[in-house]
């Protein structure tokens, strides 16, 4: 029985929110939810009342009445005001979360690529900036391949320390994370349920995705746009860690990249994995 009651309490089913603007989005959902529930009970109440009160009675006739303009105007204007208010209020949050001019100054910038069926992430590495790749220079898109999905130009010195992860990434807590998302083949959708983030990634363009997590932990990334048979399994994990843990992880990664470079192995340490996992 409690399960049944829980189904009726729709708001209890949200996964835990960990992003700064997630609270606003959930609150907006709740507002619309309560308005909807109110309208639902109002209209269904009236409907059921009418159906009982005016049920068939052979001794009664219907009421020949064709309507009233004042009533019509009233119930045109009232919903207009209500819905316009929802629209205007929504737009503030929409602008905050999606407008490119409102993307905050990044504390951490990561590139993300969707592929059938998985995710690549590119970090700028020790120097904190990306070298020449398909994001920083459009012409480098020609370098994109199964082994080099980001189109990294290895002749650019700034590229040497950029490193890639596959199907997992880490971000620091309480920091503005800005991700630039794209795809190497078909459409995918970058969906972080706990972060209340969703953005389709489209091959050929880069999308701005940003968020700021206030809680550490291990969470999931899902693909939300049908991308083929393996769509359902296009899952990745990410960890929100404290700033010090994040720095330690970065140092470790940078060390690995450096060691690999000195051993003159190709810089992208996931290249072999990428070949295996691409079709």
């Amino acid at each position, binding site marked *: 029985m409690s*399960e049944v009651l829980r189904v009726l309490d*729709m708001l209890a*089913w*949200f*996964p835990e929110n960990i992003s700064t603007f997630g609270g*606003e*989005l959930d609150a907006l*959902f709740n507002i*619309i*939810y309560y308005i*909807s529930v109110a*309208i*639902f009970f109002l209209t*269904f109440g009236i*409907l059921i009342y*009418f*159906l009982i009160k*005016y*049920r*068939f009675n052979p001794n009664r*006739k*219907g*009421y020949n*009445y*064709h*309507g*009233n303009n004042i009533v019509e105007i009233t119930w045109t204007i009232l*919903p207009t005001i209500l*819905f316009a208010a*929802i*629209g205007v209020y929504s737009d503030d949050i*929409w602008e905050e*979360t*999606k407008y490119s001019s409102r993307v905050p100054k990044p504390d951490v910038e990561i590139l993300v690529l969707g*592929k059938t069926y998985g995710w690549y992430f590119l970090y700028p590495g020790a120097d904190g900036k990306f070298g020449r790749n398909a994001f920083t220079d459009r012409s480098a898109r020609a370098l*994109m391949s199964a082994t080099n999905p980001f189109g990294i130009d290895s002749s650019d010195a700034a590229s040497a320390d950029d490193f890639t992860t596959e199907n997992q990434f880490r971000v620091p807590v309480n920091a503005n994370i800005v991700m630039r998302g794209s795809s*190497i*083949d*078909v*459409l995918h959708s970058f*969906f972080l349920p*706990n972060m*209340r983030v*969703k*953005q*389709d990634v*489209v091959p*050929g*363009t880069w999308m701005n995705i940003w968020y700021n997590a206030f809680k550490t932990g291990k969470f*999931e990334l*899902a693909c*939300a*746009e*049908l991308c083929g*048979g393996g*769509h*359902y*399994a296009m*899952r990745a994990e990410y960890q929100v860690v404290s700033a010090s843990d994040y720095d330690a992880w970065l140092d470790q990664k940078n060390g690995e990249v450096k060691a690999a470079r000195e051993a003159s192995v190709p810089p992208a340490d996931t290249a072999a994995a990428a070949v295996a996992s691409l*079709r």
Partner: protein
Amino acid sequence: MSTAVLGSAEATTHGHGHDDAHHDLPWFRKYLFSTDHKVIAKQFLVSSLFFLFIGGAFALFIRWQIAYPGKPVPVIGSIMPDTWVTEAGSGVITPEFYAQLLTMHGTIMIFFVIIPFAVGMFGNFCIPLMIGTDDMAMPRLNMWSFWLVPPAGMIMMSAFFVEGGYAAAGWTSYPPLSAVIQSPTFTLSGQTLWLISLFLVGFSSIMGAVNYVTTVLNKRAKGMKLFDMPLTVWALFITAVIITLGTPVLAAAFAMLFMDNFLHTSFFLPDHLVTSSKYFGGGQPVLWQHLFWFYSHPAVYIMILPLMGIASDVLATFSRKPIYGYKAMVFAIAGIAFLGFIVWGHHMFQSGMNPLLGTTFMLSTIVIAVPSSIKVFNWLGTLWRGNIKFSTAMLNALAFVSMFIIGGLSGVFMASAPVDIYIHDTYFIVAHIHYVLFGGSLFGIFAGIYYWYPKMFGKMLNESWGRKHFYWTFITFNLTFFPMHVLGVAGHMRRIYDPNVYDFLKGLGGINEFITIAAIALGFSQLILVFNVLWSLKWGKKAPRNPWRANTLEWAAPAHPGHGNFDRDITVYRGPYEFSVEGRDLDYWPQWEPGKSISVHHHTVAVSDASEESSSVSNH
């Protein structure tokens, strides 16, 4: 229903009237390649019912897999073709077949069930009869508009025989997924067959629509002004205008995607894709979404507006009341149609379209809730102080109104672009679309079938079976689709083969199983309808000329009208909803009956000075 007031002698005389004025046609011209709009309507009824069960079967496969991932499909699992299952005889659906299932379910239900029902069947049946004319303006074009559908359906289903099976990119078929192919040029794949098939269906729609517009504008009975038309005709007329404006755009998009697939052009494929296909470059994937939704959002209204009209007629008839705010209803339909063309981008909030456009599309989308609520309030106003008889048609119309309220309210969530960020592509959307298209459209279609079946076949549908069908459908429908809202709120993505891959979806197995059981019951409940339609055809009670004591012109025709429809000259004297008029004994006043009335403060009052016409009044 009481039929005492009807001229029953008349009804029997013309009961089986294939009008003698039309010389005998060979059987295939009568039943197959008929130009009679009523026969064409019945053909649409049969084909749509057939596809309803195909689409429903696909849905049940989907439901089974999502509730019991990795378990063999019961009963027929062992005999499923090898290409559908993980290994021969295992009965477990593959992920690839799952994508085909969801694609075909959506495509068939929208293009082969709801649109043909709503527009093909009711458009054909209702328009000429309700405007009091003998047939469509262009009967031969009308015949062709139906006869494009069976080949289209066969082409769609024939993808079973090609390599890779049915189209599998979703009913929206977003490229690059729908266009990146490894196969050589000139290969017929599931996707190309899908495109050819829907191109034909689109042509069928356009042919039907130009016919409807022409017929409504040119062939109305003497005395019938535009604002004397029943709301069903208004809705179908405006729907036809939407089709003529929107469908060509979709056809153009189909042509481009077809060329991308068949000839390896790249309208929708950008350069530097990392794929084993070598045919791409220079295209724009999001262009498809704009073109597709420019038609397919109005298509949502193509699928609901006719049923709004039908529900209005049914509500008025069984409440014995005029429609509250008839003109407001017409303007609301027109408003929805107009706004429907400037809201397509709300399907694309997360597509990567410029977020500034997101703002404008959000505002236009939210505005469209206004005409929708006007309609709901006017329906409630129509019930107010009525004398409501709960026939099966009425029950279904009431279900239409109430489910449309829920579907409309859940639409406000996704109309708000920031809320849509989270619920986009989740089961919340699936719940919404089914509340509108099943709870709305399909209940409207049921209402229409129960309401007009007597005029279609000259027999009454069995009310008792009708009620059983209604209650089963109504309850299992809500049990199936309401919990989907909860899945959506929990973040459950749509179109996924196995939710157990994700930790955050692991707690939802119970709801998924519950939905599947309800869906199976819902699917099988529809057999009652088919049984009733077939049983009543043979053993149903003979229908009188005007079984519901309604006002609109189709009830002036013989009980089972033949080719040519009417056995009398039709002149229209008043609007379609003059029920319970003061100064009359009968609680209805058909449009074709002479008589004078005056309007006093929104009430109609009969004035008795129609002395020479009084004899013809008493005839009916």
